[in-house]
């Protein structure tokens, strides 16, 4: 469809752009920089994380835990990673879930715990 025709269908264009974004984002490879050791400890409720490089100690929420533990095993594309977390926690992969996971991921990246290639 050419652009002029598409403009009549603003909704469709939006969807098209969103699809492109999702496509791009899902190609992003996430990994834990292996120069920096991560130590995890749980007492049964939540999980603490010690980031040896920065010396920070963090409390990981229930959605961050499977994200980090999965990445400890090796890099993974973002889409697959979020699906893994959803599967582990029995969540539906809807917009709310994805927004939440984006936030969690962004927080971890800000702390240099997770990086993107």
């Amino acid at each position, binding site marked *: 469809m050419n652009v002029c025709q598409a403009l009549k269908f603003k909704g469709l264009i939006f969807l098209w752009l969103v699809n492109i974004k999702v496509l791009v984002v899902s190609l992003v490879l996430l990994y834990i920089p292996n120069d920096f050791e991560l130590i995890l400890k749980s007492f049964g409720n939540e999980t603490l994380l010690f980031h*040896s*490089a*920065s*010396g920070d100690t963090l409390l990981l929420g229930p959605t961050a835990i499977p994200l980090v533990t999965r990445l400890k095993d090796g890099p993974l594309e973002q889409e697959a990673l979020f699906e893994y977390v959803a599967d582990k926690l029995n969540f539906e992969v809807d917009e709310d879930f994805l927004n939440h996971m984006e936030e969690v991921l962004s927080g971890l990246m800000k702390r*240099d715990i997770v990086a993107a290639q």
Partner: protein
Amino acid sequence: MINSSYPLLDVLIDPELLRELTLADWNELIPQARHALLLGRLHALIVQHDLSDALPKQPLNHTLSAYLASEKQRASTLWEVVKLGRALNSLDVPVILLKGGAYIQAELSLSNGRLLSDIDILVPREKLDDIEKGLHSRGWRSSKKDDYDDRYYREWMHEIPPLKHITRGSFLDVHHTILPPTAKYKPAPEKLMAAVREVNPGVCTLAPVDMVIHSATHLFHEGDFDHGLRDIFDLHGLLIHFGENESGFWDELAPRAIELDLIHPLYYALHYCSLIVGTEIPKKVITQVKHGEPNMFMSKVMDGLFMRALRPDHPSCDLPFTGLARWLLYIRSHYLRMPLHLLIPHLTRKAWKRRFAETVEQPKVGDTPIMQKNKTSGWRFWVR
């Protein structure tokens, strides 16, 4: 045989002598090492020479404690360098580490147990404004709240004041030259920057000969002898390490110092390392640095001053007139750093400030009275 009133020097040169110490000797040794910022290094040597089991446990608690602190500093420094790398590399500027930060990043053994207080970097002068802005946006702020102090750095020393990070609390000194533009000797920073070695992507140290010359200049020009003995052992460590591992190091050392207009501090460095620690310097180099030797009279005067000032800042290490020696060298360093018409008002103000010592940030945990920052030695002569 150990000098029982100044055991620190003997045991640092030959750690096996620690076996000879009585518990009473340790009462002298620990405070000396602590004041000299060498307590962590002492522990590193004890471990390296496998002496832990042979020595009494109680004093070793103190050396271990200092060593643990130095290990934390190592980890923090490495992390700071990562953060600095991101800040500077985005401006296409490499992180050129100086002094302690460089020793840690280059994993030199002299960094083992070493205690440092801040990170020093060298940057190109023309990018100074951008760098300051870039650092500011990532949380580094001026640590000087006083306008005078701020001006001292910017207008007279042509430097950014020391920076402190708002969340991490780390200190950063950004240099664009190794001596102030007002100083007597003028080493060209471009020459240093052209010769740097990359130790990690985007992170560099000075070339080996430059690292030695810079350390020598810092010690023998800057007048900060608080940790003079530590700096002498740093120099000794650098000379031994590069002498053994860098081909051409001894050949290049003196000529490079001449090229940088810094043959005088290099002379002093080699002279006092040899005199105090017994560092072996090749004869050829000794001859080459004679360029930097003062006349016979000054030589004797300087020996008298430096051999006092380079002892730990602790009363048990003081020789007669040590206070005077430190003061004279302090004045000398400022004279070398700035012309007389700036020097006198500056020193007057500094002395006045010292009477009303600054308060230090309260520790966040525990009840203590208000802490203060002050020196208790060297200034006895001048202020009190």
